[in-house]
């Protein structure tokens, strides 16, 4: 009985800690949501109020016309860029991961080391030369600099897919070869279905990465109506008198797709992180 009582106390302490910590972590998000439903005066109220009086749901509508910024257009641009980048990067990375895991060739592991090293190189230092080169090729202010690199595999996605493909039993390859499968058929019909989970994890990463991408579109895109929403959103607060209730509403609209995705695909989000951690 003594240990059972002690266990109950420990469980109680754990719950108290969990609740305090999760409320702390959730508070900023709740605050953002509360602000998105306030009137202009309520925003500046001190002491601050959370939810009081009428809730101004119309803020979510007004965010689309705030300061005549084409917010709806920003969202469409981001959707376009993100969807193409996701399919392009997942397919190309899967093929490359296949080459690094299911085909034995001389020098494979050395080349794979280079892939791992490129994960460490900060992409940010490439932005200046890339800008100059894209300028020479007259590709600035088009989506090509934003999308094209995603057709050639992303090191991190290659990495997590390779991990998954290494775990597929060899016998599958051999029986497929006996059945007369070509290398490409082996990849498409056997390996892809077998490593589906890692493909989904990579697809989720791709969506997160491209939806979040900020520096590249800011540097490579000039026209306001071509901007993705990550950069477009930053324009919301650089006004002389920021209307925070509309900024908050817009921020929630931008954050929502990934949050919804998380609710449905939580398993794959976590899995991608775990694979990168366990075999780093």
């Amino acid at each position, binding site marked *: 009985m003594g240990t059972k009582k002690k266990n109950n106390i420990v469980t109680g302490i754990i719950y108290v800690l969990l609740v305090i910590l999760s409320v702390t972590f959730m508070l900023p998000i709740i605050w953002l949501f509360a602000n998105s439903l306030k009137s202009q005066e309520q925003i500046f109220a001190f002491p601050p109020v959370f939810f009081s009086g009428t809730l101004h749901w119309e803020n979510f509508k007004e965010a689309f016309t705030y300061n005549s910024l084409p917010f709806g257009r920003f969202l469409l641009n981001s959707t376009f860029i993100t969807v193409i980048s996701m399919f392009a990067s997942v397919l190309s990375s899967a093929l490359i991961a296949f080459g690094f895991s299911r085909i034995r060739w001389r020098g494979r592991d050395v080349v794979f080391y280079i892939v791992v090293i490129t994960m460490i190189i900060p992409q940010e230092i490439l932005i200046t030369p890339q800008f100059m080169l894209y300028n020479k090729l007259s590709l600035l202010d088009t989506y090509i600099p934003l999308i094209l690199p995603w057709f050639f595999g992303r090191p991190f996605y290659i990495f997590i897919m390779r991990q998954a493909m290494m775990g597929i039993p060899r016998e599958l390859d051999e029986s497929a070869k006996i059945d007369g499968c070509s290398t490409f058929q082996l990849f498409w019909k056997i390996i892809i279905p077998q490593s589906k989970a890692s493909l989904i994890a990579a697809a989720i990463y791709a969506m997160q990465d491209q939806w979040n991408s900020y520096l590249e579109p800011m540097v490579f895109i000039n026209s306001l109506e071509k901007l993705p929403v990550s950069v477009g959103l930053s324009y919301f607060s650089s006004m002389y008198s920021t209307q925070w209730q509309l*900024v908050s509403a817009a921020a929630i609209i931008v954050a929502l797709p990934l949050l919804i995705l998380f609710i449905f695909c939580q398993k794959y989000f976590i899995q991608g992180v775990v694979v990168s*951690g366990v075999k780093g």
Partner: protein
Amino acid sequence: MKAKKMTLREKKELRIGLIVISPWIIGFVCFMLIPLVYSFFVSFTNYSFLSTPQFVGLENYITMFTGDELVWKSLGITFTYAVLAVSSQLVVGFLIALILNSKVKGIAFFRAIFYLPTLVVVVATSLLWKQILDSDFGIFNYLLEVAGLKRVRWLSSTPTILASLVIIHLWGCGKSMIINLAGMQSIPTQLYEAATVDGCGKARQVFSIMLPMMSPTIFLNLITGIISAFKTFTMVQVLTDGGPNNASLFYMLYLYKNAFQYYRMGYASAMSWFLFILVAVLTLLVFKTSKSWVYYES
């Protein structure tokens, strides 16, 4: 005869392998190697982007190291932030993972909550914290006032801005927390059982079993943490844009301003190369020391 046959097969396999990974080779050459080499050449020129590049030798590098105090200021800010952010992330990420590792009902729900902040788009996160930290109507100062403390102008000086950024960073440490959690769960339970039989207490188990077994995970968090701290850009650009008075001028932000606001492409290229070498050296140093403290099962 037989040996020759093998090489033929090997050649064929090498060809197939290279064809399959060729997208990566093309991407690596076009989007990484060529830009790197190009920026190396540009770093020895004076290139305002409108005129043609003029060769100036080592001038950019000499200015960087001797004539431009903002380089050192931004480096100092970035370095201080890296130390604060990475160390606190290691500790907090580990402690929260420790709590989330307990087997109580509904734990999956709590894990999801801690992961949630990492999903909010970075620009949205910045705008959210801009409101929380606002010195007039922000909730942070309200809480301070309730606690009987003085209001703080959070985004006004280097120490308070760095403190704010570390807090924001900790709020978004869900990924490293999940990695920690996975590391904890991969430790065989027999180790704890054996320790309990030997009369080893819970706290002792954390230090003598969990921490050493998790050293590869901590190592990974350390490396990725340092690299991402040195790349800090978006959050600061939206929050303060380096101000006031360069109080939050991070290295990456200064590099960006040189390239795209002052159009000093040669100088920005030199700064890029310096950052590249700095990150490489730091990573190598951590790798070197890792031999003495990271435990790998053979």
